């Protein structure tokens, strides 16, 4: 009976000898997996990098910006070789109602040159480049191959993976699961036992072709400079948000929503994208764009409290598989967390191999390195923010209230004199049924988290 990867897979018990086919198997050639394989290969150990798609990135979709700073630790002067579409020099946060939009728009030329900050990229390019770096160091990339389950010894330690190739069992001293948001291997390993599951959002995206010069004009940029716009209030009250970002000669526009919220409103995700594309603040930007590709992916947005156990006997979890996407309102990041976690997982595997102990104890340096770095420090600090951002007030009341406040501020109602600012605030809050104590409570949560 052929085996397949999915929910509820079970492990196969094997008589594991000290001889293993390879030192490390990494499952998934995304940013986490390739960073892990790169570090293991660099240290001189044998490593196989499995990828279920025909090429790295073929199963991957993301929502905007790769923050490359962590790559400084992996690739000197990475910006000279990374397949970048545009360097983000304008970062906007837009809040909207169906007829209004209020934007905080920041731009800096400091991000237009080395060492840069964020970049847009197509995942098939980016992930292929990262996997190529690992291959150059000696990692063996095996595409078109699914890890369908774990191999365990009689004591329960993980000693390899089963794949869907003929004679596909592959034994290893360490398995690093970077198998993405559905993380079937981590679930099979029991890493999610007792953890809340299902904290995922659905991202849908359209990539629209437009001439490079048109994009430059519409977004007010030149050369390889680019723009990322994050949007709140564009999902008809379903928890989520939207985005528009520039590639070199295309735009990507999409929404991210709680998939459980769609049926209740009888809405489909592509209708929300169509809505956004028709919005008076967005339509002039995307007008005439020819659809190059429609895509979708789940995003693990639950944050710190929804992360699985990260270390087991012979087993590490990194990237989306470990729910490491950061969805904290003004910050939406994932690729950088995957790169960081994968890098530390690779280093922890190397530490463990060096002392000949790949048990949970031997691999414990992974958790320590994550704790001491941005990967878990940011997530711990911002653990309450996903709940705040996806709550009803932040999703519906505040965007509408802030847009009305701005309209009240700039609307000249002569012969009426201008209203006092405090009066305007009180009146706007009241009109939107927002209680002062909720504002204060949300502000405190915000200050405690972001402060």
């Amino acid at each position: 009976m052929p085996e397949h990867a999915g929910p509820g897979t079970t492990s196969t018990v094997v008589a594991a000898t000290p001889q293993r086919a390879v030192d490390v198997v990494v499952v998934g050639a995304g940013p986490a997996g390739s960073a892990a394989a790169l570090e293991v290969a660099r240290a001189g150990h044998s490593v196989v990098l499995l990828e279920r798609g025909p090429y790295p990135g073929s199963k991957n979709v993301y929502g905007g910006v790769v923050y490359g700073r962590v790559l400084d630790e992996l690739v000197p002067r990475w910006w000279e070789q990374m397949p970048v579409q545009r360097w983000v020099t304008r970062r906007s946060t837009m809040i909207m109602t169906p007829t209004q939009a209020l934007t905080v728009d920041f731009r800096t030329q400091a991000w237009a040159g080395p060492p840069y900050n964020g970049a847009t990229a197509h995942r098939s390019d980016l992930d292929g480049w990262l996997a190529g770096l690992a291959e150059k160091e000696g990692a063996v990339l095996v595409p078109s191959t699914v890890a369908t389950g774990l191999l365990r010894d009689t004591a329960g330690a993980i000693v390899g993976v089963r794949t869907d190739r003929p004679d596909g069992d592959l034994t290893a001293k360490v398995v690093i699961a970077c198998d993405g948001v559905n993380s079937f291997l981590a679930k099979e390993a029991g890493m999610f036992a007792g953890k809340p599951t299902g904290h995922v959002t659905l991202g849908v995206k359209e990539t629209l072709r437009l001439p490079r010069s048109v994009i430059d004009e519409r977004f007010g940029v030149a050369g390889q400079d680019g723009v990322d716009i994050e949007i709140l209030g564009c999902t008809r009250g379903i928890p989520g948000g939207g985005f528009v970002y520039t590639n070199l000669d295309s735009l990507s526009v999409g929404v991210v929503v709680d998939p459980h919220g769609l049926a209740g409103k009888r809405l489909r995700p592509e209708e929300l994208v169509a809505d956004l594309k028709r919005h008076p603040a967005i339509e002039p930007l995307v007008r005439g764009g020819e659809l190059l590709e429609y895509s979708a992916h789940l995003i693990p947005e639950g944050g710190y409290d929804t992360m699985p156990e990260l270390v087991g006997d012979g087993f590490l979890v990194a990237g989306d598989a470990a729910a490491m996407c950061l969805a904290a309102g003004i910050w939406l990041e994932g690729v950088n967390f995957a790169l960081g976690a994968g890098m530390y997982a690779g280093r922890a595997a190397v530490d463990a191999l060096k002392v000949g102990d790949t048990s949970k104890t031997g691999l414990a340096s992974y958790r320590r390195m994550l704790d001491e770095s941005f990967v878990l420090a940011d997530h711990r600090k911002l653990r309450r923010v996903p709940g705040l951002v996806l709550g009803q007030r932040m999703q519906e009341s505040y965007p509408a209230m802030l847009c009305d406040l701005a309209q009240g501020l700039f609307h000249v109602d002569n012969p009426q004199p201008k209203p006092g600012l405090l009066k305007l605030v009180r009146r706007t809050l009241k009109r939107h049924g927002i209680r002062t104590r909720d504002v204060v409570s949300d502000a405190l949560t915000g200050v405690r988290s972001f402060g």
Partner: protein
Amino acid sequence: MTYDQPAFDDHMSTVDFEVARRPHITVNNEVCRSCRTTDCVYACPAKLFVPTSDGGILFNYEQCFECGTCYQVCSGQGALSWTYPDGGHGVAFRKG
């Protein structure tokens, strides 16, 4: 379903698939017929779950994004049998 159906087919025609012989997801209509929420019909980004007149679900795996949304939103015990396609098959995004 409605007049926007051709437009959505245009969406899906922009995506590359290496369609496998094995349907990697199947639905059990015995369970679906008793479902009152039909979350999958709304949430599946590829619009692969189509309600039938007898209260069941018509499902075609061929243009699946393999995202996992259906198994996340499905509340019917045993309604979905969900796996990834075998290696090299299924969706292949170029602009993700």
